[in-house]
């Protein structure tokens, strides 16, 4: 993937790929973290900020953030809740479910009929199953989704969890 060349500030060889690589390692925990990165890739602090701002604006980077490892917090009940919604309703219901505080991720996905008719996936995390189910009951009632077919798939075991550069959270 190549980005357009650096913005008009030409002291020659500014290499945004080097900055990208440094960013992957994480932002340093120091008072001037951008300055620290700037020193390592031969840019000014302002240039570093301009690049990151541009990547965010272009949508390459969603945000500079962190990943919470829910297992380390004892949040072990991880439910994938799936719904079979009419194609005409799925976007609207998806937006409403995403606005529910208990929902941590919400996607529309391709159905695989007949085995898998479900087209909306959301995740609900919690410390215990009963709490997750109670939260789901509340949501169903509040959003009037009683008549929509759904399934709750709790995870029994995580066999692999590597947060690569593309993957930063459980994908429902």
């Amino acid at each position, binding site marked *: *993937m190549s980005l357009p060349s650096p913005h008009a500030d030409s002291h020659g060889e500014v290499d945004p790929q080097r900055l990208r690589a440094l960013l992957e390692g*994480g*932002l340093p*925990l120091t*008072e001037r973290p*951008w*300055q620290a990165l700037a020193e390592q890739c031969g840019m000014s602090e302002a240039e570093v900020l301009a690049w*990151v*701002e541009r990547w965010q604006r*272009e*949508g*390459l*980077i*969603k945000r*500079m*953030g*962190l*990943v*919470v*490892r*829910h297992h*380390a*917090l004892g*949040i*072990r009940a*991880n439910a*994938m809740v799936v719904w079979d919604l009419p194609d005409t309703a*799925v976007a609207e219901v998806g*937006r409403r479910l*995403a606005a529910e*505080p208990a929902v*941590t*991720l*919400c996607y*529309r*996905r*391709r*159905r*695989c009929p007949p*085995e*898998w008719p479900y087209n909306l*996936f959301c995740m609900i*995390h919690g410390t215990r199953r009963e709490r997750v189910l109670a939260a789901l009951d509340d949501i169903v009632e509040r959003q009037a989704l009683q008549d929509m077919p759904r399934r709750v798939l*709790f*995870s*029994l075991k*995580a*066999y*692999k*969890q*590597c*947060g*690569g*550069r*593309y*993957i*930063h*959270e459980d*994908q*429902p």
Partner: protein
Amino acid sequence: MNVAHRPKPAKLDAADRRIVNRLQQGLPLVPSPYAAVAAELSLSEGELLYRLERLLEAGVLSRFGPMYHAERLGGGLTLAALEVPEADFERVTETVNAFPEVAHNYRREHRLNMWFVLATETPQRIAEVIEAIEAATGLVVFNMPKQEEFHVRLHLPV
């Protein structure tokens, strides 16, 4: 990684929780971002940095970094599932996890009992990896690519 053995959960105090919840929304793009967030949370910058370091060390947080859009980076990403016969579960787990493109793999309660995320360098590669997994396991892969993402504000409120 097998995470079945369970270490004691980390304990967060009220300030830790505020920090984690605030930072899931992202860091401001200013020269002193930690100072800006500390001010929002009525903490000193030193205390915020100290607590962040501790949370990283405790494994509660992973690195502080860019959250990419895989698709816009030119990569492929999908969620896939298998119906694995109980007697074969261990063997199939090993076979599937041996693919470097498999990121997460969860056992779930359903006839489709194995759920994994595939992340590839290019979108075309997804189909190739799925074919290879089908060949290696002798099972049908159910491929459920994302069609739309609905944005949540907090990914994991703590």
